């Protein structure tokens, strides 16, 4: 029987009172530990094949015109927590436009929509776990958590990884954004682990006269090959 690493203790709490909507939307009972079964150690190997359509690795090329804003290239690797590459895994991406506005009808602040930017895409890692996509650097935007609350610029990222146990949804932040330091959602994560969500500006992946490069590695729970006690019951 295989299993995956437990969640790093204290890394991602369900309750962070400064993030006000987490107060009524987080359980108060402790999570119940269960033995790893096939349910948790398997994951959909072919779900993306169900879906047709563009893979969406260039979020600036989904409309007839060029979107407003700073063009960027985000690249990196998906690894497990023992630094082994996670190959052929899907990263789903969504984000606000350069002005900090989502195309979503629930986003009603008066920053402009961009007819040439949707802000959603998908990218698949290669055999070494590497990925790269082109987008626009998103803007910061106000939200209702408290008076004068602003979300730092961020890109939403979602990964299934190889198993039910390896699911991850996170956000990538940008260096030199002081809002990260006071954002209640980013601050739900204790330091220094919070900084794992801050990408790095990278000269090498910056393309001359075209786009700035940022690096962002994503680390999923790793597979533990240690046999479990239960295996002995079969002998």
């Amino acid at each position, binding site marked *: 029987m*295989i299993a995956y690493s437990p*969640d790093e203790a204290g*890394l991602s709490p369900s309750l*962070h009172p400064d*993030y006000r*909507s987490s107060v*009524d*939307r*987080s*359980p108060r*009972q402790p*999570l*119940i*530990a*269960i*033995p790893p*079964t*096939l*349910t*948790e150690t*398997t*994951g*959909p190997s*072919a*779900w993306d094949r*169900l879906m047709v*359509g563009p893979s*969406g690795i260039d979020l600036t090329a989904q409309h007839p015109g060029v979107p407003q804003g700073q063009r960027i290239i985000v690249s*990196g690797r998906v690894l497990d*927590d023992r630094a082994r590459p996670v190959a052929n895994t899907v990263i*789903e991406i*969504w984000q606000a436009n350069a002005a900090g506005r*989502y*195309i*979503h009808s*629930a*986003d009603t602040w008066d920053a402009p929509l961009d007819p040439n930017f*949707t802000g*959603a895409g998908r990218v698949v890692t290669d055999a070494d776990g590497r990925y790269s996509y082109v987008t626009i650097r998103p803007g910061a935007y106000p939200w209702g958590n408290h008076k004068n609350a602003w979300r730092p610029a961020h890109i*939403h990222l*979602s990964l*299934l990884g190889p*198993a039910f146990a390896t699911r*991850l*949804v*996170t*956000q*990538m932040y940008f*260096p030199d954004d002081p809002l990260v330091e006071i954002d209640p959602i980013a601050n739900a994560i204790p330091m*220094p*682990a919070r*900084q*794992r*969500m*801050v990408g*790095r500006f990278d000269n090498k992946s910056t393309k001359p006269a075209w786009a700035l490069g940022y690096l*962002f590695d994503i*680390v999923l729970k790793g597979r533990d090959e240690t046999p479990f006690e*239960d295996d002995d*019951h079969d002998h």
Partner: protein
Amino acid sequence: MTIEISPGIALGIAIEDREAPPRIDNQDPAIFGQTPWQTVGPFFHYGLPWKGGADLVGKSDMGARTDLFGEEHYLLNLSSPTGTPEGEVIEIAGQVFDAKGVPILDAMIEIWQANAAGRYASVEDRRETVPIDPHFIGFGRASVDQDGFYRFRTIRPGRVPGPGNTLQAPHLAVSVFGRGIIKRLATRLYFADGDGNDEDPVLTAVPADRRNTLVANRRDGGRWWFDIRLQGDAETVFFAV
């Protein structure tokens, strides 16, 4: 003499090869580890759900909320069913409630399950003796609708092995996401009339007085109803996986 113009940048390096000095960030080996979770927020609808994502039998566009953004932004994919899976077609529905008992209107549910024969469509399920169903992926995703209801159409799963020589009762693995939910909440759905509920190795690990939060009941001979309560009396059991 080397003149440091900023930490890590020496004048001996060609100007185009200079890198900004390292920081405590994503690339810092000293803080390498699991990437933390962050909420999906309220605007996930054009990024995560896809049309047909809630229909594992594969004939409709259930699961997406295309009413929330313009048609020119339909980059969402559409399931392309290859055929009809084997087994009993069922519908699963419910709501997600907060601590005050109010239905959450910006939640998203994912399911992961075995096929009717009890095999997962996963390279990690290597049991050759149990057939794969080429028409069944076993993974689904549904946004809740404007009234907070989620709905899946799927196949009633078969039984799969548990630890040792145990056999698990039929179940679905369920993940709950939403605004205010920092980290995915993992639970399970069992069926009220499921074979082996009394001996299921996971269900029996749950205190007896909370097991009913994991059991779906059939309403009027139709849908299997499974409400999820994030907090309060009858709080749903969530698992560390």
